[in-house]
């Protein structure tokens, strides 16, 4: 228990640092803004109480907001992602269910399952985030393109990290 708390705290810090120090400074174009920190919400264990999940999501987003100077934007998106996560897990659950005391991972549940899981949550998160950022529907399809392109990059990064995690 203590062990897992330390492990998650460590990955939390690492993900935030990766996001803030590296990815936020990559400016390829206005369309590509990968937000990999959302991975922290993805890898939390299955049996985490939903209130804790929501609080942790909020904390993650709030920290990101502090770093990016946009109060409430990331918080709203991550809280939505945290809220939607149990429902998505229910929908895409495998035939024999999830093992208790484990967390969603590529090595246990396979590439296909993990890709679907990641894609759904990242899409929800990015859609909320980008539409909150522009805060209007005037450039609806332009924003949608940004969501899709950025999601592709975010998912790629998350899969890269997940492959390395499996190697450990």
């Amino acid at each position, binding site marked *: 228990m203590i062990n897992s708390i330390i492990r998650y705290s460590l990955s939390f810090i690492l993900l935030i640092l990766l996001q803030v120090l590296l990815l936020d400074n990559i400016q390829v174009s206005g369309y590509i803004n990968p937000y990999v920190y959302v991975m922290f919400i993805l890898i939390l264990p299955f049996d985490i109480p939903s209130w804790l999940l929501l609080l942790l999501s909020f904390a993650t987003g709030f920290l990101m907001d502090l770093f990016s100077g946009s109060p409430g*934007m990331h918080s709203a998106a991550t809280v939505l992602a945290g809220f939607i996560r149990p429902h998505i897990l229910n929908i895409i659950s495998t035939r024999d269910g999830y093992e208790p005391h484990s967390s969603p991972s590529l090595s246990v549940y396979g590439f296909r399952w993990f890709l679907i899981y990641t894609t759904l949550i990242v899409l929800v998160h990015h859609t909320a985030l980008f539409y909150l950022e522009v805060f209007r529907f005037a450039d609806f399809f332009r924003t949608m393109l940004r969501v899709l392109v950025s999601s592709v990059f975010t998912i790629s990064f998350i899969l890269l990290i997940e492959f390395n995690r499996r190697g450990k």
Partner: protein
Amino acid sequence: MRNLLNFLARYNNLIIFLFLEGMAISLLTTGNSYHNSRVVNGVTRITHGFEERISNIRNYLHLRDINANLAAENVALENRIDRLVKKEDSPFTYVTDTIYNQQYFHTTAEVINNSINRQKNFFTINKGRLQGIKNDMAITCGGGVAGIIVGCSENFSVAMSLLNLNFKLSARIKSNGYFGSLSWDGRDYRHAILSEIPQHVFVTIGDTVETTGYSAVFPEGVMVGTVSDFEKKGGDFYNIKVSLTTNFNTLHFVDIISNLKKTEQLGLEKLFQ
């Protein structure tokens, strides 16, 4: 209470989610000036439509009060304009420059002898050369033309009355500016004849006839009388009967007007004759 607790236990997820999401959105809208302005604009756009309709109806219902207010305001403004105008006008009405550029000089006199029943009438006034009276000065009475000084002694002057067959005056119809020659036909002390007004001019009974100032005797715009009758006689000109302003039968106090620039004007005109 039990139901409430059940409800909370059942939906605690949703409640926490809504709470946190609401917090995030409120942070978003208050913390970022851009998002804040977007929200405020959106809300005001919605509420503004309703408020506009309500205020339109309210305006219609209050038209009576609004009209009353406007009328009161109008009155107040008009009063103010009157005050301001008087203030502006006062320098022109109360200050007269007696040294520079004054053209006419007025003085008063009393008629001591008068006649109206001859063909060539004269009257005598009680001021003469010693009082500064000279030949060819104009005489008016109560704002109307009376005559011209034709001879002066030391203390008396004789004036040719308008009621004199030799009296000629340049006069015009005020409404249209056409000028002609005014003279007396020797019949009636209340009427004179204005001739040389062309027949294409529109003349109506009651038109004002006034002096032109061309003769350098009378100032411009001194009242002569009003048109009482007119006829188209033979040629090209009207024969206009003018009812005189001055009542020569009761002539008593008169104004004598001297043109200070008369010699200058006549001297200049003489060069071209």
